[in-house]
């Protein structure tokens, strides 16, 4: 078996009496899309936060490319190769679309301590930013103010910023949320191709997208992974139906 790019081991996190993560061990292998599904309040966001470094687990560990990163913060994990997109867009709304993408390129370059030459005159930064905007289909909106983007375009920009980082693993928190049918279909096609560059840990409520994309699906309920398997296995699992899918069908 190939070494996983990202792995959590026995992650546990409680908020008071609530066990938000209860011994979660999942991994992300090269070339795959691993979807995490589960009802609201199952602890998906808490899991993402622990993987990305925004929350420390009470116990357990997170390994990235074979290295234990449990003690590291968000910035260090990003530098180590995590590319995250947010459920609720976290973009600099006053800035242009290009500036948001250039921020990602700047993070990738690791050289923010430059005070004189304009950022826009830096051809490397610019090329990297423009390239990722082009890939997500925002090339025509580069000079727009980010606050003026539609909801769907902001989701695209989230993905574009993650692309500028050249991550070793993508962590995507509900990238389809609020996209509409056409937008979802487009993004689904894009993510389908993206997995060849870096595997994707995908938290998503859109079941059509999940079943179309995921190589593996893990079902999270009350902080526990109750099943992990292929789309077919998950669809067939009685426990999953009862816990989750049944509500929708």
């Amino acid at each position, binding site marked *: 078996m190939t070494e996983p790019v990202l792995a959590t081991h026995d992650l546990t996190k409680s908020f008071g009496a609530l066990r938000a993560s209860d011994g979660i061990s999942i991994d992300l292998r090269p070339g795959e899309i691993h979807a995490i599904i589960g009802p609201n309040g199952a602890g998906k966001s808490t899991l993402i936060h622990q993987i990305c470094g925004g929350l420390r687990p009470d116990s357990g560990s997170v390994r990235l490319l074979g290295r234990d990163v449990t003690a590291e913060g968000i910035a260090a994990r990003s530098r180590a190769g995590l590319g995250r997109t947010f459920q609720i867009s976290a973009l600099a709304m006053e800035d242009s679309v290009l500036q948001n993408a250039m921020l990602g390129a700047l993070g990738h370059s690791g050289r923010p301590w*430059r005070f004189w030459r304009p950022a826009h005159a830096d051809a490397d930064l610019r090329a990297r930013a423009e390239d990722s905007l082009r890939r997500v289909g925002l090339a025509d909106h580069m000079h727009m103010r980010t606050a003026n983007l539609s909801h769907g375009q902001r989701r695209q920009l989230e993905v574009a910023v993650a692309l500028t980082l050249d991550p070793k693993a993508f962590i995507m928190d509900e990238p389809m949320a609020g996209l509409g049918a056409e937008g979802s279909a487009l993004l689904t096609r894009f993510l389908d191709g993206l997995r060849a560059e870096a595997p994707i840990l995908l938290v998503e409520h859109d079941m059509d997208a999940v079943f179309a994309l995921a190589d593996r699906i893990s079902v999270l309920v009350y902080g526990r992974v109750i099943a992990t398997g292929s789309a077919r296995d998950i669809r067939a699992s009685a426990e999953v139906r009862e816990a989750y899918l049944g509500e929708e069908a």
Partner: protein
Amino acid sequence: MIRERYLNLGVLALLLALALLARLADQSFTITVLTKVVILALAAAGLNIALGLGGLVSLGHAVFFGLGGYAMGILAFHAQNFAPLELGPLTIAGSKSMPVIWLTAIAVSALAALVIGLLSLRTSGVYFIMITLAFGQMFYYFSISWAAYGGEDGLSIYIRNGFPGLNMLDPIQFFGICFAVLCLVLLFSDRLARSPFGLALNAARQVPVRVETVGLSPMRLKLLAFVISGAITGLAGALYADLNRFVSPTMFSWQLSGELMVLVILGGVGRLIGPVVGAAIFVALEQLLGGLTAFWQIWLGVILLLIVLFARGGVVGLIAPKGVGHD
């Protein structure tokens, strides 16, 4: 609507033209008033880097203004009294040279900003305001009780300090020096805002978590902005002390921190020329209304209220609304 660049150049040109006219008319008092505008603008331009670019609401910038003032006061005091300054093993003769005083003022206030920043940046919002205010009060009360340098009465310097090759006793030459420093600082601020550092800082103000997610540290970006900001305000403090040939604890007062903030908000937070416009309005009101009534600040208050309620971008925002991107 005016392109911002023309507005910036226009305001600076107007300031320079007024000073030259005053020189032709032999109105040295007017030149002194214009010099005050320039120096306050410089102090506020320093604050504008922390407040406008970094989003750091510092109610303690008087610390740096005062440190700059006392750096000048103490160096000049020792020089004029021929009493060397003993700092442990180090003996300094004092100095009456502006470049030496400026560098000292910059170094001392940058160091203070580093320490204050490291402690205050752990907090945010109203706690950040309170902690910077607390530092300001510490310096204020310390300066009051520091009898060696005049305590409450402050320090008088008999003759304005010198600049190589120029006569600083001539008001227009001193104005020229201050004006040149202001222009250089504004040029630097402008470049800074557009630089990679400025891009990251700008984002750190809006969405710190995004900046972390691309692998940068918002805390370090803001700390450096705070240090640069403090150093510039410190330099302004040294010039202000030289303008008045006097330093006193008032330079450390929280009212002064508040005034600097008023200048920035009046002119336009985060706008390059905002501090200059703010300082010009402030000093103009002080001079014009101050002669009519002792309560002129009531009118300043009214204007500030109108700006905050109806024109968040300040006066500059009214004249040249902020664009997006890089021009």
